[in-house]
């Protein structure tokens, strides 16, 4: 170790100045990349907080000149945002519930049990996870129409769950894999049945993974636009994703209310995705990447 250190120190006879220059360039690049990436979100926040006489002016000031908070109350008064958000909660909670139950079952079967057909089941999940939602929309619309399932928050949640379930199972399978099988075996030998092994050992040991699945399922439904816009036709059933898309910038909704609506809708998903990113990424690449 000491050896390599000495060698890297000597290796190219680099002066401290050159190294400092390199660091400056490096940090400069990192800063520029972060700034560019973050700018659109920054601009949403600025346009929300700033009175619109500054924003509706060209060129607009890049830093907020004055901050107000009245736009939130005005937004809720002008549009049924509270109803939209309530509908989003209902759909997202139902989706989450269905996904939790089914993905615990599926992940346990994939991770802890050995049975003929297991790999085929895994493959089936991989492929269903990759189908574009659009391709199923028209037949689903026809079927839902025939069975009078349109305009129903629960039936929308059922479809949402069908699309996100494969990813949830993959996330949870990766998490269940980390439970040492000696523990499970010992419990089984001690006379626990499989159900109590799952309930008393696997689930308590994998709480973060369960939270990750809940987050993924919840926010998939929370963010979903396509199915919600087609399967729900009534205004009072609109979830926030569809409701927000009916707002028209500049024309009828003042810009600070428009951006406030986007901000309110984004806060929860940003918070939870950032907290759970490690698990979610692993699930989306279906266990291909460890890290």
């Amino acid at each position, binding site marked *: 170790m000491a050896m*390599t250190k000495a060698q890297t120190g000597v*290796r190219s006879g680099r002066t401290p100045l050159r190294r400092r220059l390199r660091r400056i360039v490096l940090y400069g690049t*990192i800063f520029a*990349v*972060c700034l560019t*990436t*973050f700018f659109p979100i920054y601009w*949403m926040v600025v346009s929300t907080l700033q009175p619109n006489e500054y924003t509706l002016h*060209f*060129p607009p000031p*890049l830093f907020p000149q004055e901050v107000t908070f009245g736009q939130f109350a005005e937004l809720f008064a002008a549009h049924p945002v509270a109803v939209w958000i309530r509908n989003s909660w209902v759909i997202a909670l139902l989706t989450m519930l269905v996904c939790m139950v089914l993905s615990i079952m*599926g992940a*346990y*079967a994939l*991770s802890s*049990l*050995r*049975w003929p*057909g297991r790999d085929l*089941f*895994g493959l089936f999940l*991989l*492929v*269903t996870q*990759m*189908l*574009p*939602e*659009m391709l*199923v*929309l028209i*037949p689903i*619309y*026809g079927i839902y129409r025939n069975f009078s399932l349109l305009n129903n928050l629960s039936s929308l949640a059922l479809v949402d769950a*069908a699309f996100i*379930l494969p990813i949830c199972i993959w996330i949870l399978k990766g998490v269940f*894999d980390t439970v040492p*099988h000696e523990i499970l075996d010992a419990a*089984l030998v001690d006379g626990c049945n*499989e159900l109590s092994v799952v309930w008393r050992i696997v689930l308590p040991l994998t709480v973060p993974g369960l939270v990750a699945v809940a987050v993924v399922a919840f926010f998939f439904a929370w*963010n979903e*636009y396509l199915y919600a816009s087609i399967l729900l036709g009534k205004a009072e059933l609109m979830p926030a994703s569809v409701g927000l898309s009916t707002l028209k*910038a*500049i024309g009828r909704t003042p810009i600070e209310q*428009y951006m406030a609506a*986007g*901000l309110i*809708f*984004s806060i929860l998903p*940003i918070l939870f*995705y*950032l907290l759970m*990113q490690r698990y979610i*990424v*692993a699930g*989306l690449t*279906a*266990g*291909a990447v460890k*890290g």
Partner: protein
Amino acid sequence: MSNWGQTRTAAGGGQRQGAGRRPVRRPLLPYLLVLPILLYEGILLVYPIARGVIGSFQSIELATNVAPEWVGLKNYQRMLGDPEFWKVMQTTLLFTGLVILVAISAGLLTALLFNRSFRLRPVARGVLMMPWAMPEVPVVMIFIWILNPQFGVINLFARMIPGVDQNPQWLLDPVLALLWMVLIASWKAFPFYSLVILAALQAIPEEIFEAARVDGANWLQLFRHITLPGIGTTLELLVVLACIFSFKQFTLIYLMTGGGPSGATETIVIRIYNTAFRFYDYSYATALGVAGFVVSLVIAFFFVILQARRAQENF
């Protein structure tokens, strides 16, 4: 037998060797666990797809409840003979290809930048991840506002380019509109690719770099002979994933441009939507859907193959 081995590794993706796999004492249990899932996905995904495939050979009038009529290959003949279909396919290919290029390059660049520790790295990483965590509808709202031809802040920066003295009509120009769709889709997607590439970079043992540096390799040689081979399979996998994600992309494009101006951003997914829910031409839309289904199955096939290869390399 050898075939089985392949699917086995494909499905067993990120499994540690033999982790917690035991023969079941009650052999029916796994099937009891999996049956509800198969039924659920069967009813809500497989059956509708089958219905869609059947429907593509029929003439459907959803609005009138008239029984569907068999028309054979008529929908497909119309599709293949429709120059607009080929234009849509071209746009889809262009959009998907560009998003893969831009998003994965950005992901690779940021992953390389972040593959060293520096103060504030957790903060910077959090900032970088935000676009990925944003729902699509607010992303659309942000960019509709930023690209507004009258007050949009983007014009402030565009005006700095010599020769630009008017605010461009960002979404009314076919080339600019497509470019913006690519940029926005990439902005939203690249943090995810960056995370995945970073995980792969961190899996390369530091000693290899040390040894190569001792031997006098410069950074380009290090990148070409150590970094790139080390993350090669991950990059391949991400290309296929990016292909799937951008092929699926609906909400961003639909809410920003609706496929316009004059079809410049109309990918197959947008076309299916417009055909079904704007022109109420369900049977033709279903045939387009089957075409899309075939394309995505081909991509999925590559994904599975790459997964299998990766899994084999890991063990």
